[in-house]
């Protein structure tokens, strides 16, 4: 019988890694976090556009946000 190629891990270990990542992100510089925030805005805006939900436009764009149209 061959060995299982799947990496087995516990849910606790997954959540622990997730928490560690959040702490690492929290420790980034504020300038880096602003860039991440805008990525989040772009993602939210894209998903909203595709589903027809109103959403403000990401920073750095000059378009009037959908909620004001």
């Amino acid at each position: 019988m061959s060995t299982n190629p799947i990496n087995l891990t516990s849910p606790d270990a997954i959540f622990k890694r997730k928490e560690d990542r959040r702490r690492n992100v929290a420790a980034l510089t504020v300038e880096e976090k602003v860039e991440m925030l805008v990525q989040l805005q772009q993602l939210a805006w894209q998903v909203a556009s595709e589903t027809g939900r109103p959403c403000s436009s990401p920073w750095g764009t000059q378009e009037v946000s959908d909620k004001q149209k």
Partner: protein
Amino acid sequence: MSDHEGVQISVHMAAALRVINDLEADEIIRRYAIGGAVALLFYSEPTLTFDLDIFCHFPSEGILLNTQPLYEWLKKRGYSPEAEYVRIEGVPVQFLPSTGPLVDEALERAVERPFGGVPTRVIDYEYLLAIMVQVGRPKDKARLQGTISVTPPDEAKLRDILERHNLLDVYAKMGI
């Protein structure tokens, strides 16, 4: 990580903060500090927001605020209001007056922090948390839970603020 023109967005935010510093220097607004989710970025992980909240005092504070000098000053520099905010250098900025003693104290004790080489002022972490407790919307509770789990506050300092502003019971009921 950049905007559609290939310019880092933090450059936009730094430029917006320069404009806000000019507003304070020209005494259009009095002592200001960054609040809300953008202020949290100075202490913890990013959470989604679309506004840069600027808490400030206005020169003529009373029952009604006269925001006309603020909007006229901004308009002269090409920044026009869009609904509840003004887009300054691509960043939607909301100017918020103090809502009471807690925000007054938070503004007074706000800390100087540079952003992209621009000096600015940010509401202190424990005051930010206390303001979220006071505002108490579902999104504030969710942010509080998430933020505190990643970046634990100075418990004694937070407790002192909450106690002095009669918010300990509200905080306890949040079950955080």
